């Protein structure tokens, strides 16, 4: 698990902290944080994290655009889209851009556990 790098992209520091706190409980500790879509793209290209959580509604570049550009750079990218209440249309666009799965805010421990298990199994 020490080698698994996880990128969390959300413009809300509160949401990033809430997600990180849950993931830490599952033994992962290597995080990258981005507060907009462009930062996420830049960090992805530099570090190639194994898993990316991207919020949909963000300034500068939104999640849908970020997913598009990350997938262009790396078609194998493991991207989970994070949707807030009220963003169903954008969620659909994100899935069409190639998000692998989605999780809805507010985060629950079991929801995140399922995603980590599906992506990394017992790793």
């Amino acid at each position, binding site marked *: 698990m020490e080698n698994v790098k996880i990128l969390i992209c959300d413009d*809300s*520091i509160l949401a990033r902290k809430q997600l990180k706190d849950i993931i830490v409980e599952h033994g992962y500790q290597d995080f990258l944080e981005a507060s907009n879509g462009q930062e996420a793209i830049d960090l992805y290209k530099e570090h190639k994290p194994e898993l990316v959580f991207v919020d949909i509604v963000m300034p500068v570049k939104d999640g849908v655009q970020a997913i598009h550009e990350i997938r262009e750079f790396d078609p194998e990218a493991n991207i989970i889209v994070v949707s*807030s*209440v*009220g963003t169903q*249309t*954008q969620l659909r666009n994100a899935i069409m851009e190639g998000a692998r*799965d989605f999780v809805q805010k507010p985060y629950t421990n079991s929801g995140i556990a399922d995603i980590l298990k599906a992506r990394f199994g017992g790793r």
Partner: protein
Amino acid sequence: MHTQFFGNFLLNKGVITPEQLVDALKIQANTHKKLGTLAIHSGFMSASEVEDVYITQTHYDKLFGELAVNLGYLTESQVDNLLTTQLPDYMLLGQILVDKNILTHVELENLITEYKSVYEIYDLELIEEQQNMVNKLLSDFYLPEDLPHSEHILSYLTLLFNNLVRFIGEDFTTLNVMNLSEVPTNFCISQEVEGSFSFLSALDMEQETAITFASRYVNDEFQEFDEYVRASIEDFLNLHNGLYTVNMSNDFSMELQLLPPAPHENILLETGFSFYLLPIMYSFGTINFLLSIKKMEE
């Protein structure tokens, strides 16, 4: 506790797999609404009546509407009415799942009834006393004459009062709405919502007030005005507007888009349209709620 999308609701019920949901969402944009789905949604026909028409259609080469009229399930004017009816996203998702034989019409109808009841319970999750308080606030509420007395605005304010009671506390009262062309802010978070009803919404308050507001919202004890306090208030506004867009989608098939919340401190807020300022007085300070309507199509 939060409103669930119909897709998430189906996942949680174990009715569909994540793969099935993702597949269905992918084709949703290019799927045409069917008269049968519209008839169930409008309450003109039950799911079993719709099934009956589809079965009959396998024997007679006729259009759904024509057969439904022949069978006495619909009148011709109801068919005309349905042809111009909008369909909420969740019904279209349901239709796709029926087309893919994942659900039957009857199962879909039952699931939608359940989804709506869960959703409405959430929407009215206030105890009776709190509900009475919100009702009183609304009945005493004086809407300025130039503010459109529209259902959309009233439902927005009802949801706002409900969310304040639910997430912050019921120890508040409102003062009369003021109409301003620009607003000098203290600590202010704004969020724009776009679509056929476009507006800017904002919460403005003193930093000290923000600390308590944020602490109540996330059940934490913030001591100073920091980025977590800012983020908590953005989250409240984002959640409130998000719930509103879900309501508008479900009730009016109106699809609105949320833009990211934006912070402003000590500036003069302008949109080119007038602001309605609603002071909300809490025991710990006053929160000014701002609404600037840019476009409203009924």
